[in-house]
């Protein structure tokens, strides 16, 4: 029982990180139909920037803020340089473009920060034990901050005009333009959100799960799976999908085999997508002929 609780708790905090990455996928996909393969790199980059800032003497909080701001900036620049100029954005083009950015960012991190994995200083070091379940303070921070950020993003989409206009672009691009919403601005804004949320995921995860130049790959893949579980266009779905994936992974690692941990996400992706017809996903409604 204690084992189960321990695994569930660990799974939730891991899942909260996936949830944040997943929100980034959702933010961009809903507006432009682009799956941003660099989403995981946003998180890795934020972790590495924060680590190196702390290493050069900056206070932890300042380092975290610096990391989040600079990654948000990177996301915005990426949108302007790579997404904006393309007139005919097909699935194939968008995948290759964002793959290019992802590869470039990876290599940049390798060149600047070297090949080793490191962990950021936790916000609060140490932990405690509650009824046999050992809990690290950082895990509580992850859950708390991820919860607040998710709620904030959700509130933004549901309650603010800017958020509603982003949803309008996703649902009715033509009508949105007719009422004066700029798709280019919406796309830029969606990358800003994705960069910020991804960066927060990165700095939160780094103390526990470590960050290296290539840790964005699996993180991105899992964030995508989480987003897909939730239908790829819903913030709430992305959060639930992230938590579910995190818990399933730790349960697999705990009860079956650690090695299979990374296989769970993939299997889940296949099962969900194949078993449930395309109709439940907003974008893939039956083709009009």
């Amino acid at each position, binding site marked *: 029982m204690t084992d189960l609780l321990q695994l569930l708790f660990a799974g939730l905090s891991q899942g909260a990180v996936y949830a944040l990455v997943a929100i980034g996928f959702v933010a961009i996909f809903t507006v432009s139909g682009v*799956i941003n393969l660099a989403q995981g790199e946003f998180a890795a980059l934020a972790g590495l920037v924060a680590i190196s800032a702390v290493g050069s003497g900056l206070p932890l909080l300042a380092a975290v803020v610096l990391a989040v701001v600079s990654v948000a900036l990177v996301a915005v620049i990426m949108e302007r340089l*790579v997404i904006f*100029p*393309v007139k005919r954005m097909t*699935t*194939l*083009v968008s*995948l*290759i*473009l964002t*793959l*290019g*950015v*992802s*590869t*470039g*960012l*990876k*290599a*940049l991190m*390798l*060149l600047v920060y*070297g*090949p080793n994995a490191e962990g950021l200083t936790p916000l609060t070091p140490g932990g405690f034990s509650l009824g046999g379940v050992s809990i690290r303070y950082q895990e509580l921070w992850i859950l708390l901050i991820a919860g607040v950020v998710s709620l904030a993003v959700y509130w933004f989409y549901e309650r603010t005009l800017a958020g509603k206009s982003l949803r309008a672009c996703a649902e009715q691009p033509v009508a949105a333009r007719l009422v004066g919403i700029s798709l280019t601005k919406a796309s830029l804004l969606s990358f800003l959100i994705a960069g910020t949320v991804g960066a927060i995921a990165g700095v939160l995860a780094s103390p526990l799960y470590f960050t290296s*130049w290539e840790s964005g*790959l*699996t993180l991105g*893949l899992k964030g*995508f*799976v989480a987003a*897909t579980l939730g239908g790829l266009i819903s913030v709430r779905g992305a959060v639930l999908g992230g938590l579910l994936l995190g818990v399933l992974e730790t349960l697999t690692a705990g009860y079956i085999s650690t*090695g*299979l941990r*990374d*296989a769970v*996400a*993939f299997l889940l*992706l*296949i099962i969900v*997508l*194949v078993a449930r017809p395309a109709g439940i996903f907003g974008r*893939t409604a*039956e*083709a009009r*002929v």
Partner: protein
Amino acid sequence: MTRRLPRIGAHRRRSRRGDVIGIAVVALLMLALPLVASSSVINVGVYALIYALAALGLSLLMGLAGQVSLGQAGFFAIGAYTQAVLVTKYEWSGLPASVLAVAVTMTAALLVGLPLLRLRGHYLALATLGFGVIVTVLATESDFLGATSGIFGITKPEMNGRTYNSPTEYYLLLVPVVLLGLWLARNIVESRIGRALGAVNDSEVAAESLGVDTFRLRVQVFVLSAAYASVAGTAFAHWLGVINPNAANFPLSVKFLLMAVLGGVGSVYGAVVGAFAVEGLDDGLRRLIPELLPGAVGEVQLIGFGILLTTIMIFLPGGLHQLWTGARRRMAGSAPEPDDDEEEIHLEPVADDVPLLAREGRPAPGTPLLEVRGLTKRFGGVTAVDDFDLTVAAGEIVALIGPNGAGKTTAFNMISGAVTPTAGEVTMAGTRVEGRKPHVFARAGATRTFQNLQIFASATVLGNVMVGRHLRSRSGMLGAALVLPARREERAVEESARELLDLLGLGEDADRLAVDLPFGRQRLVEIARALALDPDLLLLDEPMAGLSGTERRELARLLRRLRAGGMAIVLVEHDVEAVLALADRVAVLEDGVRIALGTPDEVRHDPAVLAAYLGVEPEDEAATAGAEAGTP
């Protein structure tokens, strides 16, 4: 009319010659390299040749099936590991081992592809990425495969007492393999299979309606693509002598993708050129970057890959192939396109009742062909089609009319398999087809055209119609690859397609791109394409729209002749007068409900129909009585 000679096969033949030139140039360059280059450059060339095979497979997958794989290295690794195990643990010799390695990989690809290829676009790409990750994980976890350190001691191949152990020797061993790979790939692209897949990329629903089993073909290309990767993997294992989980690494998949994209997606020799360019870049950056940035270690060349991938997609989405074709076109000067005057079509003046496309085995006139029972479609709260019944017999023309939004096209979509009904049954020539794919409908002997055209944009008019012959020809992937048995059939297919085009007055446009034709003629291309299937039942969705008066009369005459030949025709049409003059029976839909069915005369005088069309609001009872009278 005769002043313009038909340019038979000009377009296709030119592109074929372009391919042959491309392959010949690539072959010469490949063979020239060992004569001029140092041994370290040839070593780079060896890797380029190995990776070219994997990139070629990926290029086929992207170009033909329109799908991106981010896990090509996974299949590369499966091939390499199988080879390594067979050679080191079971002491097989290289050649039989590689045959088994390719077979194992293809089986794996089939097992992976069957679930994966139900996914599309983004999902498929990410799923293949996941597949690559899994292969890495499995290789790392497996003690049998040597875990992280992998398998050592794979010897250089020996054949006829000759050991291929120097870069030059190995390079020259690989060149013919790559050329063979190129030749097979090119044949497949040019074949019936390649044509069908190209059509799928342009309009999946139209290709399916002509009988193309998209899923099956996609799986085939996926397996083929994996086969190329596995050949590369076996060559890699022997050259390096050791194989470890890095072979399934994501950066390697990215490298294959870059090679294919740089060369030009779907251009077969482009993948080889791309492979040499990328390997050259890889080698250069690995030397250059540590000099510029002391202390840089690891896969630093990725920075170049990332930048190159992005810039190509933005500035040169067709890759080097685009540069090459662009340059050739400029050298040749812009070829004068035939003038675009929109002449009316002039068919041979033949009497209305001379049968057309009659053939043996066609159901006798009056035999029920299509039976629709209780067909219903709800979109959310809206019922687009409600409990629709219709029976169509061989040799009759049935029209489906009704105001805009009455549900006519939705009914068509359900009958032809493009849309799954909420309820109801559709039986075509004894086969239940509702909720299945359009190709099932086509196999049962029926096809359709589309209201908003679904022309295959990247094909010529002739190419469009040839896709229609898909079910009337049979050469598969293997036959196509080996070309010989398929040649004859291709000629027959082309001939019958041309005959149909002549019949519809499109003969002179045969070799133009179909999208360059005026709207009305594109409709005729769709009809010719559908007729190429030689169907027993033809569904036409607004065939008259966009046609001139003469063209409409010619089309009506054609439909009558088809009817005389025994074909059943159902058409949705807005031109009510044309329809009443043409059809044997007319069904009227309003708000998804069939309010009348009968001969044109009966329908013309049906009060419910008049109300629906003229907006007269009859008293409720009269309307109900009328609707009942119209329903036999």
